[in-house]
């Protein structure tokens, strides 16, 4: 296969297609490409030889904190606080310009040699290392841009961008790591200069910008569940060279923005380069669990929305949850694929979701490729709240999670002397879209999902779509403001309580566990599934990963909650970390069977990247961890390749 790859390179070079080939061997964006396909055309590593995969190199950045006092070896800049929030590292490594680029949760950029992991250069944004919006120091990587006609000897013809939690976007030279001073005047643009409505917190740039032509498209992340009135969702289009603002997209109109907020785009975006369309996964509005002060339709909230790239004007939008009361943010870039169906080629996209539905839409129009049906859903019993009477349901492709929660797990119930079944009986449970309530509602799937921000991957040739997902049951209980404030002032407000200040209720949001910490619902807790997008048929659905508690691995049939996503290679492999057990795995695309796994030092809650360098295919994972899964965190980047 090495020989074949070399032959393709030679042919491409002879035909003047070297750039095209370089693109295919690259992993130059967060999702591998702007279509968010997470697909690599490389085929050196195959189902037959993947068992011979070994560690090619490991590198540690030093940018890690378990929370509190950092351990020895942590990169500490002078003047930094002696204690740090924990780190969450979900950076997709980028391979482009013959270099591997990474952002870290300390908001530094690392440029590494792709075959050894040795550091070429680093750049320190000197960002404030405080939990200004998120509870953790969080980063999902960097973005790359290059001049179409670079001028030799001139700096910043190729650039790398990193955002920070305090809303700064930095631009540096991709070859040297030096700031590009033409960007924002000093190499930095302060995004918070445009935070002019309900500016309760900075617009955190945790997700790297989406880059197309000379545009940087930028969403932001905020502080969930804290405020009723919050910064309203905006997407900024900046000039890649200067950082000048080209246009702004607003998810809420002025009146709604004043009394609500968010509806922001905190995940990655995708681009249809031919149609000049930018696709946005738009999140839910604030306050997240009570909508009495935002009873207008807010049509763009919890939607997938297509914008004209040149102007930012809306081309179409499709709301996926009406009057969202569950924090079901649309949370991943839609995957673009052309589907051959009934003799026609349909320009389609697949939008995964926390609610577990896979929305397959025509990306020209937003109309469903497979039917979406409005079905009646339960009404709210909370004073002041009016839940939407219907919600969109997708029958095909089959939802990754069922409409009803999986039921009480006998082992967790027995171990807690019936706690699980007693609690379940006391909660409001009317299936999907049961609204939050004063007595407590059993919500499935809840804000954990379903499918998280990693989304899915597709093989564009076969139309097979692979997606990992979680099966988690949560309890949403609204607490009247006076009771909530009294509890908070008495100091009894602890984990699981969120104020939603400005709303008539706070919320207690907990995962449905017994007092021993066991999930009260039947496993599996996480799985991975494959679909044939040409027919909508589910091909396979298998438990994925292993729960690890106190170090003990639970049975594989239980699966694991997952954060992160898959990558497909042309040889028929699925590479994925994502599980809480710190293993990274290769699965057979045809069956979902595990073909290989390797241990890394923390859950690899990032998209992996696959690239070819000097004739060798690498698969690289950032093993950073996420406190939602386990307290174990790391600063390790690991590349795997076939042994000699």
């Amino acid at each position, binding site marked *: 296969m090495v020989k074949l790859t070399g032959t393709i390179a030679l042919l491409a070079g002879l035909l003047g297609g070297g750039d095209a080939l370089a693109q295919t061997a690259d992993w130059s964006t967060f999702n591998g490409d702007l279509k968010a396909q997470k697909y690599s055309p490389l085929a050196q590593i195959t189902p037959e030889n993947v068992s011979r995969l070994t560690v090619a190199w490991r590198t540690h950045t030093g940018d890690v904190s378990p929370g509190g006092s950092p351990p020895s070896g942590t990169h500490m800049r002078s003047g930094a606080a002696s204690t740090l929030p924990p780190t969450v590292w979900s950076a997709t490594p980028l391979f482009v310009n013959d270099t591997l680029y990474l952002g870290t949760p300390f908001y530094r950029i690392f440029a590494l040699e792709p075959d050894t992991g040795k550091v070429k250069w680093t750049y320190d944004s000197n960002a404030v290392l405080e939990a200004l919006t998120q509870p953790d120091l969080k980063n999902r990587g960097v973005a790359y841009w290059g001049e179409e006609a670079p001028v030799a000897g001139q700096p910043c013809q190729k650039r790398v961008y990193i955002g920070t939690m305090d809303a700064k976007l930095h631009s540096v030279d991709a070859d040297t790591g030096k700031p590009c001073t033409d960007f924002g005047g000093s190499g930095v643009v302060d995004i918070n200069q445009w935070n002019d409505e309900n500016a309760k917190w900075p617009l955190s740039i945790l997700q790297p910008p989406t880059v197309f032509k000379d545009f940087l498209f930028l969403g932001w992340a905020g502080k969930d569940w804290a405020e009723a009135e919050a910064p309203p969702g905006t997407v900024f289009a900046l000039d890649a060279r200067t950082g000048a603002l080209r246009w702004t997209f607003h998810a809420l109109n002025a009146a709604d923005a004043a009394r609500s907020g968010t509806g922001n785009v905190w995940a990655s975006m995708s681009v249809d380069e031919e149609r000049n369309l930018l696709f946005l996964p738009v999140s839910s509005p604030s306050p997240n669990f009570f909508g009495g002060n935002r009873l207008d339709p807010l049509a763009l909230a919890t939607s997938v929305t297509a914008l004209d790239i040149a102007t930012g004007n809306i081309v179409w939008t499709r709301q996926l949850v009406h009057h969202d009361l569950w924090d079901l943010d649309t949370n991943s870039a839609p995957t673009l694929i052309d589907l051959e169906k009934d003799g026609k080629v349909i320009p389609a996209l697949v939008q995964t979701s926390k609610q577990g539905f896979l929305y397959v839409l025509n990306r020209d129009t937003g109309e469903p490729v497979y039917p979406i049906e409005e079905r009646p859903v339960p009404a709210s019993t909370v004073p002041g709240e009016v839940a939407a009477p219907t919600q969109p349901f997708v029958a095909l492709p089959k939802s990754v999670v069922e409409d009803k929660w999986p039921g009480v797990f006998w082992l967790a119930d027995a171990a807690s002397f019936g706690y699980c079944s007693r609690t379940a009986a006391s909660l409001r449970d009317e299936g999907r879209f049961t609204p939050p309530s004063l007595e407590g509602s059993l919500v499935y799937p809840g804000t954990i999902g379903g499918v998280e921000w990693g989304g899915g991957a597709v093989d564009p040739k076969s139309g097979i779509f692979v997606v990992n997902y979680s099966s988690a049951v949560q309890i949403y209980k609204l607490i009247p403001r006076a009771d909530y404030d009294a509890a908070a002032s008495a100091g009894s407000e602890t984990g699981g309580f969120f104020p939603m200040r400005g709303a008539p209720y706070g919320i207690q949001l907990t995962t449905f566990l017994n007092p021993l910490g066991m999930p009260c619902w039947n496993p599996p807790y996480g799985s991975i599934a494959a679909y044939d997008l040409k027919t909508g048929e589910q091909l396979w659905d298998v438990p994925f990963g292993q729960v*690890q508690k*106190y*170090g*003990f*691995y*639970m049975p594989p049939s239980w699966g694991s909650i997952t954060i992160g996503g898959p990558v497909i290679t042309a040889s028929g492999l699925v590479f994925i970390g994502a599980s809480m*057990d*710190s*293993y990274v795995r290769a699965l057979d695309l045809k069956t979902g069977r595990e073909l290989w796994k390797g*241990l*890394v*030092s923390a859950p690899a809650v990032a998209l992996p990247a696959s690239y070819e360098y000097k004739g060798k295919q690498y698969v690289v994972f950032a093993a950073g961890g996420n406190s939602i899964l386990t307290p*174990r965190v*790391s600063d*390790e980047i690991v590349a795997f390749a076939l042994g000699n």
Partner: protein
Amino acid sequence: MEKFSTWGARLVAVAAVAGLGVSAANYLNPQSGIAGEPGTVLVIASTALLALFALLMGRGRDSFFRIFILVSSLLNIAGTAFAGYLLHSTTLVALMIAALLGWLFHVSGRRTPPVTASLSR
């Protein structure tokens, strides 16, 4: 046969000490998947205890004490092996199989089976 018994106890001791070393290394090695985990602390403690039991095997005149040590050792070996299985520590499981063999050698090599001795009094 007495020698066989002594060698059995020594095998338990060696397996326990090796298990202690492996578990301590796992606790400290971030690549082990179980570094710093309470479950790893548990097997560190259990292998240390097993090493102590191995030293006490066949010692003491009190048959109750000897039976207690034998039964405790067997439970320790089984529990540590199960914990090792759940921790994905195959080396620890293999060492506990070796410890079990040592325990069996020790018991089968004794002149008077301890249970019989106990009942005969």
